[in-house]
């Protein structure tokens, strides 16, 4: 699917959740086989127009996520292209065993879209902030995980996921007015990372909307003559092993930045690969340090977990000195 400048701009203004609903509206126009299943979150997922217009391509099971995955599995078995969606904790942990058995073990195909993952719902507390989803889903065989960097990338990866064999978990992060990471149309491939910025001294590997903080940090570092590469590792599973090996052999310092527990997420996936090649490099894990905290808005949450642009900048500057 192609992106144009106006789409990129609108998507960025409305954020990933509302963009998701718009993308579904676009997808169903050419795919009568599409079935979007929700657990009473149509408004939160930007699906209200979709729900009114395409009732035959829509199923709402109410607030019952275990049943959601089961119903979606039955529909998938009949050949529907099934997308499920609800808030990230309920899309993953609440129905984790249904995901394991129905999608991992039996290999039925569903695209699961986890809304508002990471820290953006910090004001609502850690029932809604989602810092464990990748770790849980990553341990289940036969699933792919993508965390798009901006709404445009969500548009790209949702289309690609429908063409993939097997289930995909798409993790949405950030709020409305999110930062545009990809300003023009580009080639998106599941499992293939994208180099957003190139520098010699340090390599930041990240994904999701938190990449915007990494890019700002890299600009600050450049001002201090510290060359900084930034890699959009949008696919956490299967991870881009080739790129990670190349990075490990070329950089003395690698920094992974994620809106997730540092256990089980992107940093872990990167470390699992690096540890096998015996490269002369060091990895710093920036993310949620295996703890819960008092809540607050997105800016506050990024600050207290040391993944705001300034905190990333300071940490890397201290390490490079």
């Amino acid at each position, binding site marked *: 699917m192609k992106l144009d400048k106006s789409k990129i701009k609108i998507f960025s203004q409305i954020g990933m959740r509302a963009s998701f609903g718009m993308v579904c509206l676009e997808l169903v126009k050419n795919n009568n086989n599409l079935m979007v299943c929700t657990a009473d979150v149509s408004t939160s997922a930007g699906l209200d127009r979709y729900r009114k217009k395409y009732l035959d391509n829509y199923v709402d099971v*109410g607030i019952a996520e*275990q049943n959601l995955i*089961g119903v979606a599995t*039955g529909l998938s078995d*009949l050949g529907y292209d099934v997308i499920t969606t609800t808030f990230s904790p309920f899309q993953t942990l609440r129905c984790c065993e*249904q995901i394991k*058995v*129905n999608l991992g073990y039996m*290999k039925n195909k569903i695209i699961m879209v986890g809304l508002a993952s990471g820290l953006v719902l910090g004001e609502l507390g850690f029932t809604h902030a989602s810092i464990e989803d990748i770790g849980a889903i990553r341990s289940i065989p036969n699933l792919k995980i993508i965390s798009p960097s901006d709404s445009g990338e969500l548009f790209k990866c949702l289309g690609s996921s429908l063409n993939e064999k097997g289930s995909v978990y798409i993790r949405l992060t950030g709020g409305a007015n999110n930062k545009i990471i990809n300003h023009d149309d580009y080639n998106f491939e599941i499992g293939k990372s994208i180099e957003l910025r190139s520098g010699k001294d340090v390599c930041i590997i990240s994904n999701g909307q938190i990449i915007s903080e990494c890019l700002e940090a890299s600009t600050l570092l450049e001002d201090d003559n510290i060359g900084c590469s930034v890699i959009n590792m949008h696919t956490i599973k299967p991870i881009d092993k080739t790129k990670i090996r190349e990075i490990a052999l070329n950089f003395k310092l690698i920094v992974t930045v994620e809106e997730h527990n540092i256990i089980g997420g992107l940093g872990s996936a990167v470390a699992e690969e690096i540890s096998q090649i015996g490269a002369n490099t060091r990895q710093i894990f920036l993310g949620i340090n295996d703890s819960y905290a008092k809540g607050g808005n997105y800016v506050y949450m990024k600050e207290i977990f040391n993944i705001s642009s300034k905190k990333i900048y300071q940490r890397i500057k201290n390490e490079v000195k």
Partner: protein
Amino acid sequence: MNDNKDYLVEIKKNSKEFRKKILLMSYEAGHSSAHIGGAFSSVEILSTLFTKFFNYNKNNPADPSRDRFILSKGHGCLVYYSMLSSMGYITKEELKTFEKNGSNLLGHPVKNQELGIEFSNGSLGMGLSIGIGLSIGYKRKVKKNKVYVLMGDGECNEGSVWESIMCAPNFDLDNLITFIDNNNFQQTGSNDEILKNKNLKSKFENFGWEVFEVDGHNEEQLLTTINKLNLNNKKPKAIICKTIKGKGISFTENDNKWHHSVLTKSNYEEAIKELENNEIG
């Protein structure tokens, strides 16, 4: 009525065959044990369904026009494998591989299209949701396939079961027929001892289902009930089958030690002898 009489003889014959196959697999499993009690309690339900109602193609387990069956109480796989064997999908030789290393026939069903095993089960409380998804799909595609689900009463402890029971009536799923094997036992005791779950009939009715209650070992009641189901009244159906755990062999009936147990050679021979001596009337 004559027609029904012929079917009744056939159903009883098949029930006997199912029990023999269940015993054979249990014996072959040896010390890895087998879920015997809950398989025996479901025999008449499945033999009635298979003999008279279930639409399948013996040459193509994936025939798009087939009815669908989901064994939500996955530990009852012995009776499921017996039915699939009678359908021609699993050979008697393959039945003997039950629970052996590398077998396709494990102690809970593992999805295998060639063998007619539609879904993997074993973790309780998941099958009805899948059945609902299939039923919604067939309705929206305007297809006549029927979806049958077999659950256990112990399985109804799971919260996810009640999510699906609440869900089904919202979608007018008159193509969904759920049997509940109500044998009053679960793994470590009677339902009353572990978690009381009485009045299943009124519970389902209050959730909006059309509900029938039958003696789950009475082929005539099963036959008549399934025969009269109204498949156009927009209501999902629950058939609560009052059953006896371990039914059919005197030493296994209502003895919960046969929930999951080793069938020795002498047990096997005694059970087969008892079955052979039972005339089919």
